[in-house]
C-alpha cells in the first residue's frame, strides 16, 4: 500500500500547468483532491511517472455566479465549497444535493469537481446533475482552449475526451430559465459512504401555465458506461401537462433506456427497477419544485 516513485510538479499558474502537461504528456497525471488518484496509485491501478499538482493554481479554483449569465466553477474547486454554496443551493439544486451526498466530510473537503468528472467513474455523483444542468466544460492546453458539452466530454467508463496535454479547467453552467427546478437522487445500500448503485438528476422547466413541461433533461448515473441522457423521457413529457400517469410512463421509459450491468453492488435487474422508482420520484419532486419557483 505504498506508492511507487514519481516526479512531483507544483505549478503556480495556469500557463505553467499547460506547459508541463504538454511537455510531460501521458507520463503525467493531474493531482487535484487525490481521493481517487492516490487510491488508484496505492492499489497499483495507475502508475504515473509524474504528478502535476494543480492545487496551487488560483485560476482553477472557485465558483463565480453572475445573474443572467450562469455559473463558472473552477475544476479544482472542492466539493465542500459546492456543498456549502448558497448559489448552488438556490440555482442548481441538483448539483448541491449531489455534492452533499458525495463520500464523507473528509472526502468532500479534499475532492474536487474536476477530479470527480475526470475520473469518469460511471457512478460519479456530480456527472448526472452537471449534464442535466446543461454544463459545458472548458478544456485548455498550451495550444489553446476548447469547449464541449459535458456529455461529450465523458466518453466511456473512465474515459474522457481529454487529449494529451489537455486539462479540464472549468465548468460553465447556464443560467436556469424561469420556472426551472433541478433535483438529484441516488440509491446505495447504506445512507452514507456509498458508491451509488444508481443515481439520477433531472432539470425541468415549466411553461407559464405552471403545468406543462417546456424543457426537460433526465440523466442517469451508474447504469451505463457514461452518464445516460434520456431521450425517451423528454419525448414523452415535453409539451405535456404533467400528471402522475405520465410520470409513471416516463419512469418506465427511463428504466427501458438504462443499460445497467451486474456487479458487486447490485444486479442489472435491480438497477433497472431502481431507475424506474427513482425517476418517478425525482420527476415528481422536480415538478413540485418547479411549480413553486
Amino acid at each position, binding site marked *: 500500500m505504498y506508492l511507487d516513485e514519481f516526479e512531483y510538479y507544483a505549478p503556480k499558474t495556469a500557463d505553467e500547468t499547460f506547459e508541463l502537461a504538454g511537455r510531460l504528456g501521458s507520463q503525467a497525471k493531474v493531482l487535484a483532491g487525490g481521493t481517487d488518484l492516490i487510491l488508484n496509485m496505492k492499489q497499483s491501478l495507475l502508475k504515473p511517472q509524474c504528478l502535476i499538482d494543480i492545487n496551487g493554481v488560483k485560476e482553477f479554483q472557485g465558483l463565480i455566479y453572475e445573474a443572467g449569465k450562469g455559473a463558472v466553477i473552477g475544476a479544482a474547486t472542492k466539493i465542500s465549497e459546492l456543498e456549502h454554496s448558497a448559489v448552488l443551493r438556490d440555482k442548481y439544486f441538483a448539483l448541491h444535493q449531489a455534492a452533499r451526498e458525495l463520500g464523507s466530510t473528509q472526502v468532500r473537503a479534499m475532492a474536487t469537481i474536476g477530479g470527480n468528472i475526470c475520473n469518469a467513474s460511471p457512478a460519479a455523483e456530480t456527472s448526472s446533475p452537471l449534464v442535466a444542468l446543461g454544463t459545458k466544460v472548458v478544456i485548455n492546453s498550451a495550444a489553446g482552449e476548447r469547449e464541449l458539452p459535458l456529455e461529450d466530454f465523458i466518453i466511456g467508463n473512465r474515459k474522457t475526451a481529454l487529449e494529451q496535454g489537455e486539462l479540464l479547467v472549468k465548468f460553465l453552467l447556464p443560467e436556469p430559465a424561469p420556472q426551472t427546478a433541478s433535483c438529484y437522487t441516488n440509491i446505495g*445500500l*447504506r445512507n452514507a459512504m456509498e458508491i451509488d448503485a444508481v443515481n439520477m438528476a433531472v432539470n425541468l422547466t415549466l411553461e407559464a401555465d405552471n403545468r406543462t413541461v417546456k424543457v426537460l433533461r433526465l440523466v442517469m448515473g451508474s447504469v451505463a458506461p457514461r452518464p445516460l441522457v434520456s431521450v425517451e423521457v423528454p419525448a414523452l413529457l415535453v409539451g405535456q401537462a404533467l400528471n402522475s400517469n405520465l410520470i409513471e410512463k416516463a419512469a418506465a421509459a427511463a428504466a427501458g433506456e438504462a443499460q445497467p450491468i451486474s456487479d458487486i453492488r447490485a444486479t442489472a435487474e435491480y438497477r433497472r427497477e431502481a431507475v424506474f*422508482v427513482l425517476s418517478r420520484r425525482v420527476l415528481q419532486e422536480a415538478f413540485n419544485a418547479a411549480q413553486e419557483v
Partner: protein
Amino acid sequence: MEGKKFSQVGRSVTRIDGPAKVKGEAIYTDDMVMARMAHGKIKRSTYAHAFIKNIDYSKALALPGVLAVITGEDAPNKWGIVPQTANEVTLAVDKVRFHGEGVAAVAAIDEETAEEALDLIEVEYEPLPVLLDPFESMKRAGEILIHENEPDNVLHQGEQLFGDPDQAFAGCKYVLEKKFYTSYVNHAFLEPHSSLAHYDPQNGQLQLWSSNQVPHYLHRQLSIVMDMPMNKIRVILPAVGGGFGGKGEASSSDFCAALLSRKTGRPVRVTYDRNEVFVTNKGRHPCHMKMKIGLDQNGYIQAVDFDNTLDGGAYAGWGMVVMFYTTSMIHLPYKVPNARARVRRVYTNKPTCGAMRGLGGVQPRYAMECLLDELAEMMGVSAYELKMKNAVESGYRSVSNLHVPHTEYKKCLQTVVENSGYLEKHGKQPFGKGIGLAGGYYISGTAYTLYLSYKPHTTVLIRVDTEGGVTVHCAAADIGQGCNTVMAQMAAEVLGVNYEDVHVVSGDTELGTFDLGSFASRVTYASGVAIKEAARQINDKLFEVAAGMLSCRAEQLEVRDRRFYSVFEPKKNIEWEKVVDVYTNTVGTLTGIGHFSPPRLKGIDLTRGERVQGANIGHSPTFGFSAQAIEVDVDVETGKVRVTKVTEAGDCGQAVNPMSVEGQVEGSIMFTLGQALYEEMHLDKDGRMMNACLHHYKVPTVMELPEMDTTIVDSYDPTAPFGVKESGEGPVQPTIPAIANAVYDAIGVRFTELPITPEKVLKALKEKQGK
C-alpha cells in the same frame, strides 16, 4: 453474606484508559518504535488452491535493504487454537488452501522496501480445483482433498440426541421446519493486526507485542511454532483496537514477526493492510441450517431438530468449538425437553472462519427466533406470549446439562414489550412498517480450557504497599471492552478504596498472572471471583493491623471510602493509608492471590451413568440474556430496509459499570445490524475476495444508527461475584431475528437468508404480488 450495596461496583465511571485514548497517547502495536527495528511483509498466494512447485526469492534477497526472507519451510510446526485440530502453518508448506494465504515473508529496513521485495519473489503454482461451496466440497472429496488427512473434506461432524425428538414431534400440534442461511462476515475491527517481535540471541528470550485478545493462547502457539519453551517467551498487549473474536487466536503476523526477528537479530514488526485483515478473515461461519421445532397444543416446545453445515474455510481454527456451540445454543433460553443436532464443519478454499462475537449463537438463534415467531402466528398468539411461556427460569437445567443458576429473561421480554409498545404495534401498522421481537442469551465463560487442563482459568495477584498503592495483576486482555476499568472497580469495592486508586497490570504474560483471555464473555465473571479472593486476603491482613490501631476486634471492622470503621462504633475509624503504612513498615509489601476455576460439569453423569453429550461445550457458570424489539421501515419500492428503533432489555446481572454495559449493548446491536442488512464478503469463482476493503465491505456508518432505548434490568446473580454476568455477546443474539421478524411484520415476507438486501426484498415482494 454478600449484599447488593456497592460503592464502586454499579457506578458509571470513565474508563481508566480513556484520557490517553482521547489525547491520542494510547500506544498500539504499530505505534511502537524500537532501535534497529525492521519491517516485515507477507507475500500472499494468488491461487485459492494450488500446489507450490517452487519459490524463488533470490531477487528479493538481493534488493538493497532486504534483511531476510522466510518461507513455510522455516516454521513447519502446525498451530491452532484447538490443539486437537491444529493444522495451520505460519506460511504455506507445499500447498495453498485459500487465495491470500501467506507463502513467504520479508524483513527489510522499511515497509516500502519490504513491499517492493514481495514483488520480486517468484512463486510457481500448480493450480487445483477450487472448492468454495461446502456441499460441493463434501461431494467432490473423492476427487480432491483440501487436507490430505481429512477424508471427506470435513473437519469434524457430530450428532447429539437428547430424549426422543421423533416421538415428541409425532405428538406435537404445531410443527415447523425451515432452512436458514447466514452470511460470510468479518469482524472489521478498526485496528489491523500488528505484531512486533524482539528476539534476543544472547539470552534466547523472545518478546512479542501483539494486537491480540488471547495473550495466553498466543503464548502457547508461539512456543509450538518457534520451538521454544514458554518461559522464554513473553507476550505483551499494548492498546488493542478491537477484536470481536478476530484476534482470538494467533495470526501469521505474530509468527512471521517472531521468526524474522530470530533470523535477523533485530526487532521486526508486521502490520497488516486492511485487505490482509479481510483475506486472513477468521470471521463468522456461514451456516446452512435446517431447524424444526414442535409445540404441543398449549404452545410448549416439545422438540427441536437442528441440522447445520458450517462452511469453515481452509483451516480448522476455532471450527470445532463453533460447531459444537451451535448445537449447544438450541437448549436455551427456552425449555427444550427433546433435541437432536447433526452438525458438520466443512473445509472449503476460502479464508478460514473462526470466532466472532457471539460465537456459535448468532446462527441458530436467527433460525430459532424466526421459527418461534412463525409458530406463534400459526397458533394465533403473540410471539411474546409464546416466548414467555417457554422461557427458562432460575435454576433450570437443560437436557444437555446446561445449568442456569439465575435468569431474568422473562423480565427482559416483558420490559422490551412494554417499552416498545410491541403488542400495540405488531400486526397493526401500515404496510411497510413493522416490529419484530426476539430474545437470546450467551455464556459468561466456559468450563474448560481448550487444551484440557484443570488449572484455574484466571489468577489475580493484588499488591498493596506504600509506594504503589493498590496494583491488580492479571494477564486479561482489554481490547476496548473496558475490563481493566471493571477490574479496578471490583478490586476497589472489596478493598474499600476508589477505583481511581487501583492500578491494573494486564495483557502481559510476565507481569500479569495467568488468564485465558478475552473470549466467551468470561473476563468480568472470572476475574471477579479471583479479585474477591485476593482482595479478601489483603483485607484480612489489614483488618488485623487496623484492629490493633483502633483497639477493637478485626471481625468488627469494615472498610469503605478509604477508611476502616468499627461496625459498632463508627467514630472509631482510621485512614486506609495509615494502616497500609504500618503494615508495610512492619512486614513489607502485602499481596493477595485469588484464582477462578469454573464449576465443572462432568462429561458423564456418574449418578445415572449416562454420557452427557457435548459436555465440554456451552457449560458456563452463568448466562446473560437480552431481548429486543426492533422496528423497521421498508421502502417497498426500492426494497431498502431501515431500522428505525431498537428497544432492548438485558440481564447482565449486576452491571459493574453501567455506562460500559450500555456501550457493549449498543455496540452489539449495531455490529449485528450490519450482518443482518449490509455485510457480506464476496469471492469470485477463483476464490479471490472481491470486497476486501471497507469501501465495498459495508459496515454500518452512523447514518444507519436507529433510535435506541436500552434497559439494564434489575438483576443479581447470587452465585456470581458481585452478582455479575456477561453483557458483550448476549445482546448480539436477538438483533438479526428481531429485524427479520420486523420485516415480516412490515411486508409479510420471511427472510431466511442473510443479509436482507434491497434486492432480495424487492424480489420477494414481486413474487408475493405475483401469487
